[in-house]
Structures are given as structure tokens and as C-alpha cells.
């Protein structure tokens, strides 16, 4: 890692951060993760692969959009609050103008049955994409300290509460979240004390 770290570069200015994150956002349709890794690690060399994975998992755990959180953390690391603002506005401004343009164009033809059909189809596909992302991520539950069975039960319970029963999200997050964190804490401290004893 030391060898890798010596080759690392840094953004020279807040403008460079802004531009880097604008370009990153404009390339990311659906999944920004792959684009972020390619831009930040391989092309700009602002972080190593390992650093990227670590930062990304924290960005994922914190509330809010993952890539926005990553921008906040990275921008904040180099230029403090102003850097975080530069990265986040880079991520949001250009894509916002673009998507709003699309929405207005669509709004003009939204009474047209063909446009309605097309959007219905895109809606079904995007629902499929979200479900597929959930399935992809579920393979990571195998490494969960609580054990695969417990982790699956929690995931299933969250799905039943929010997807099927349509209960408010806060109930699931507070109830199941506290339970999950508690179980994970117990499992992790048990492995830690085992390591100490052996």
C-alpha cells in the first residue's frame, strides 16, 4: 500500500473537484459505482483501490445518496466544507438540468398513449434494475458476522414490513435496525473476545 500511496495525486483546486465530479455524474446511468472507481482510482489516481472500497462502504452506510456521500467525504478531505460543496454541486447541477429537460419534454407528450406506454415499460425495467441490485448485494450477506440465516431473516422482515405491509419506513429502520446492529455488535464482540482468548 505504501508503494501505491506514493503514486497518489491530489485535486489541485475546488474547480478541479467540481469538474471531476460533474464528468463522473454525467457518465453514470443507473450505476455510478463503476464509473466512480474508474474516474477516481484509475484515471485521476486520487485514491487507491483499497481506500476506494473503504470509503465507499462508509458512504453506503451513512444516510443519503452513496455517491453524494463519497463526494462529501473526498471533497472534505482535501478542501474542507468548501471542497465538499464543490464535489456535491458538481454531482448534482448538470444532471439536474438534464433530467429536468427530459421531464419537461415528456410532460409535453404525456397524454400520448405511445409516450405513456414507453414510460410504463421504462418503469417496469427500472423496478427490475432496483430488485437486481438488491439481489446482487445480497451475496455480501454471506460474510455478515450475524450469520447468513439471521441476515436473510432481517432482509426478509424488512421486505415484508415495507414492501408487502406498506408500513412506514421509520418503523422498520428503528425496529429492525436496532435489532440488526445489536445482533451484529454481539457477534463481533464474541469473535473479538475469542481471538483474545486463543
Amino acid at each position, binding site marked *: 500500500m505504501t508503494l501505491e500511496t506514493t503514486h497518489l495525486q491530489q485535486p489541485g483546486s475546488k474547480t478541479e473537484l467540481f469538474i471531476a465530479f460533474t464528468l463522473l*455524474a454525467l457518465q*453514470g*446511468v*443507473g450505476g455510478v459505482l463503476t464509473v466512480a472507481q474508474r474516474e477516481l482510482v484509475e484515471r485521476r489516481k486520487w485514491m487507491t483501490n483499497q481506500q476506494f472500497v473503504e470509503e465507499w*462502504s*462508509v*458512504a*453506503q*452506510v*451513512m*444516510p*443519503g445518496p452513496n*455517491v*453524494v456521500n463519497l463526494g*462529501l*467525504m473526498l471533497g*472534505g478531505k482535501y478542501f474542507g*466544507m468548501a471542497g*465538499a460543496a464543490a464535489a456535491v454541486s458538481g454531482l448534482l447541477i448538470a444532471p439536474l438540468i438534464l*433530467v*429536468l429537460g*427530459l*421531464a419537461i419534454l415528456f*410532460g409535453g407528450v404525456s397524454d400520448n398513449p*405511445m409516450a*405513456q*406506454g*414507453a*414510460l*410504463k*415499460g*421504462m*418503469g417496469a*425495467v427500472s*423496478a*427490475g*434494475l432496483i*430488485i437486481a441490485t*438488491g*439481489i*446482487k*448485494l445480497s451475496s*455480501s*450477506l454471506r460474510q*455478515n*458476522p450475524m450469520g447468513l440465516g439471521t*441476515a436473510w*431473516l432481517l*432482509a*426478509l422482515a*424488512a421486505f415484508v414490513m*415495507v414492501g*408487502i405491509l406498506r408500513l412506514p*419506513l421509520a418503523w*422498520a429502520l428503528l425496529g429492525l*435496525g436496532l435489532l440488526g*446492529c445489536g445482533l*451484529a455488535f454481539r457477534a*463481533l*464482540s464474541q469473535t473479538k473476545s475469542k481471538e483474545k482468548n486463543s
Partner: protein
Amino acid sequence: MIHAITLTPYDWLDLFTHFALLSLLSVGGTITAAPEMHRFLVDEKHWLSDASFSSSIALAQSSPGPNVLFVALIGWHIGLNAGGGLGGGILAWSLGMLGILITMTGIMLPSSVLTYVATKWAHDNRNFLSVRSFKSGMAPLVIGLLVSTGWVLLGAHNNITQDWRLWLLAGGAVIMILRTSVHILWLMAAGAAFGALGWL
């Protein structure tokens, strides 16, 4: 498709506080809060039609940038509805912009402040056991909520005899994403084509 509504200043405040609360709850990405937004905006308040809600997500997903922009489109549609639709002129456009400002500030500000402060703190303190417990404990929920989101988006119509084609299409998309490396835009284009041809 005009869905006219009236919003008092109190309603706008209600919208803001609801999104600000959801901001802190949206662990694993803003999209995990979509079922709750649907429940609040479409089912409870009737500020937004089901079609506008789904189209906001579909458009934001097929456009480049973070998926959180679907929230901006939701705000835009609510503002437009309050101003009498796209034909409502300056008033509708300004209310649409106000909607974007309110929903985006609400959904972004609290989580961003929390992330900024907490990651600085975690970096300085590196309390690994509690950080790792939080991460592992939340992981199953993030997955369950993602699948719920897809489910709510699909099941919104609640009519199996009519909707089986939509389910088939979504199932096809799931398989294509998991089994192939086809670009998301092609899947979106295929979905749009099926829909435009009237097959759905």
C-alpha cells in the same frame, strides 16, 4: 393528466420536514425511501398521481447522474400540480422550481451534514467495533428495502390479469442485469419500445 391540487404554506413546510426526516432514514441510498414517499405523497396526501411518481423514478434512472434526482422530479411535479400543470404558465413553472428546491434541500441537507460531521468524527476516533456493527447490522435492511422499492413500483397497479406483462418485463430486466453485462440504457430502450408498441 392534470392533477390539480392546492398547497398552503403549511403543506410546503410539511413536505420539507417529511423529506428532511426521510433524508436521515435513507440508509443505502435515497431510493430505499421511495416506498415511504409513495405512501405519503400518493396514498396519504394525493399530491401526486401514481403515474407521475413512477415516471419520476423511471426518468431519473434512465438519465445520467445520481438516482437522488428522482426527488427533484417529484418536487417539480408537485409544484406543477399546485400551479395547474405545464400549461399553467409562469406560476406553474415557479412552483415547480420551488418544489425542486424544497424536496432537494429537504432530502440532501440533513444527511449531508450528518455524513460530513460523522465521517470526520469516525476518521478521528476510528471506533471500529461500533462502526462495524452498524455496517453489518444495517446491510440486510438495505437489501430488503431495495427489493421492497422494486416491488412497490411494480405492484402499484394491483391488477395481476392486466399487469403480468409488466412483471414479465421486470423479471427479464432482473435476469439480464444479473446474467449479462448489457448496458442499462439498452434495457431502458427495450422497455420503452415494448411500451410504445402497446405490448404492456
